[in-house]
């Protein structure tokens, strides 16, 4: 399999890459930290990836997207799976105080992803095969006071993916939305962990299963589907009065 990963230094992306490494696939990794890209590439090679290339990129530099995506597609010739994983949790309070900060967060978590997806979709559409998997979040399912800026961005991505899924279905390209719940990664290092928390390798396993089974939307781990179904059912009149 030939795999392109954007945000390859994310803990979830890395766990997924390791899962795929064992099967001897070929990979193209994109992330902004060059040293970590090198560390991860050498590691994946020892784990069994037969060929690996990498490219430094800050996802917020939209002007580079087309060039870099083209480069990746040209290097791999044909891509079976694209995984988009970058993201920042941001500071909700700071976003409330200063819209510049909010805009920056929205740019990283939504705008950059829509731009990347636009270029990727066009290339995938012409190869008429393959899967695009994008990590969104359960936070995008419903706005909540504690992180609604992040939620807004992830919600934007989820809705964009719904449309893209319909469009690309005709070309035989599969689009999967991944909605993790709480995952124990560097992004959430400061949080106190409880029983609902999952490790990145569990999420990786869910992503791999989802792709194999051509699932459209996956909640990872699965129980977040139930939790979010309940949360989405709470009427706004009640929702606005509770702390969640």
């Amino acid at each position, binding site marked *: 399999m030939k795999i392109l990963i954007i945000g390859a230094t994310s803990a979830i992306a890395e766990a997924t890459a390791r899962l795929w490494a064992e099967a001897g696939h070929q990979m193209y990794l994109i992330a902004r*930290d060059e040293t970590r890209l090198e560390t991860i590439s050498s590691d994946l090679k020892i784990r069994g990836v037969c060929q690996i290339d990498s490219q430094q990129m800050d996802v917020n530099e939209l002007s580079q997207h087309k060039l870099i995506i083209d480069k990746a597609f040209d290097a791999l010739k044909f891509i079976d799976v694209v995984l988009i994983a970058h993201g920042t949790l941001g500071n909700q309070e700071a976003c409330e105080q200063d819209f510049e900060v909010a805009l920056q967060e929205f740019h990283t978590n939504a705008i950059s992803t829509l731009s990347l997806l636009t270029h990727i979709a066009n290339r995938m559409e012409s190869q008429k095969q393959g899967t695009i998997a994008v990590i969104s979040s359960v936070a995008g399912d419903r706005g909540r006071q504690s992180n609604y800026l992040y939620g807004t961005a992830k919600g934007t991505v989820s809705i964009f993916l719904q449309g893209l899924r319909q469009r690309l279905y005709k070309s035989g390209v599969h689009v999967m939305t991944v909605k993790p719940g709480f995952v124990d990664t560097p992004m959430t290092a400061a949080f106190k962990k409880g029983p609902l928390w999952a490790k990145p390798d569990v999420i990786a396993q869910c992503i791999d299963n989802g792709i194999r089974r051509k699932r459209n939307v996956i909640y990872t781990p699965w129980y977040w589907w139930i939790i979010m179904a309940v949360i989405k059912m709470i009427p706004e009149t009640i929702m606005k009065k509770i702390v969640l």
Partner: protein
Amino acid sequence: MEAHGWGRYPRLEGEITYPVTSAQCVSEVMHNAGLTPQGLGRSYGDSCLGRHMLNTRYLDHYIEFDEQTGLLTCAAGVSLDDIVQTFVPKGWFLSVTPGTRFVTVGGAIASDVHGKNHHLDGSFCDHVIQMDLLLGNGEKVSLSPTLNADLFHATCGGMGLTGVILSATFRLKSIRSSDMLTTTIKAADIDALLDAFEENQDASYSVAWIDCLARDKNLGRSLLMLGEHADEGPLAVKGKRRIPVPVDMPANLLNPYTVKLFNAAYFHRIRQSRISQVASLESFFYPLDTLDNWNRLYGRKGFIQYQFVLPKSGGIIGLKKILERISQSGMGSFLAVLKVFGKGNNNMLSFPKQGYTLALDFKVEPKAFELLNGLDKLVLDEGGRLYLAKDARMGEAAFKAGYSRWSEFESVRERYHAIGAFSSEQSRRLGLR
């Protein structure tokens, strides 16, 4: 954040950081005094606990592997589980492995861990060729038995007190199959057991499960397990599908009656005096790993593991004295583990020395501490010592009597900027600076 070791005793509040690069480790070292490196927290007591802990979870990358020689270089947070799963299918296994695979390379070096092959192959650090250590002044240095040898021998077994181990190169051993050919020998008492160890000193792996509650003529009754790597068969290991112990068990689940019953059943389960079987690698080396969080079986208050070594000369009499004391107390745990060590090495605080080592668990309760204080005295009188990786309670005097090279260790730490920069709850208790 509340932190604890595998024994879940003691528990304390501290700050844990999870650096993802060695540059972030440098900044942690520069910004915190008395930092405590931490791996997977499989040491039982307080050696991986402190006010500021640096967890190596994300420093878990392979750096280089030489398929000809089996030399592996990796970052210190790589777990032995990962190595087993990645390399056994390629025909390589750890030269030395402890009884759990959920420890990091850094933790294995810092405790210079031993396995069932100590009598032939020594301990983990005897197979380490080189490592990179981050010192208290933020400098990174390379160590080997010939390069900065003093610091190398202080860091191997040095319980994280000389610096943060960033990466290491060590030798894997080649295997032809992941199957193990095992033999279990039933020993009616301690003399029979030690004879059986003696007779089987050429076995690649040997360890005994001993029933510490058996008394009088049954004192030391045990099962000696021997193992060899098979020459043919599959090269495969199962990943984790472990059975969780999701909640703390009531503390009285393990009481003298249930433990006695369990131990007796375990011993009598084997009917013949000697049986041979083929076992998988994971069931031979890591029987406890099938039960996730088995440490919760001891209840919320946790437990203490007590492991000592007695030098071979005169060890048998001392060993009997200690076994008698434990069986009389009726407090001994589940099965205890006994092993005959080969020669020790040149590392300043490494635990193994030629003789007998016994490890057993005690539920945390006041009378256990009383018993263990008494055992300390017996152990030290015989010229023995306690294993730092298991310890949660020994006093400064017991440490300094057991580890006579402690002052040499301190002077190496002084020389390499470790004093004040690295410490743990344990190091403070043991009177290290």
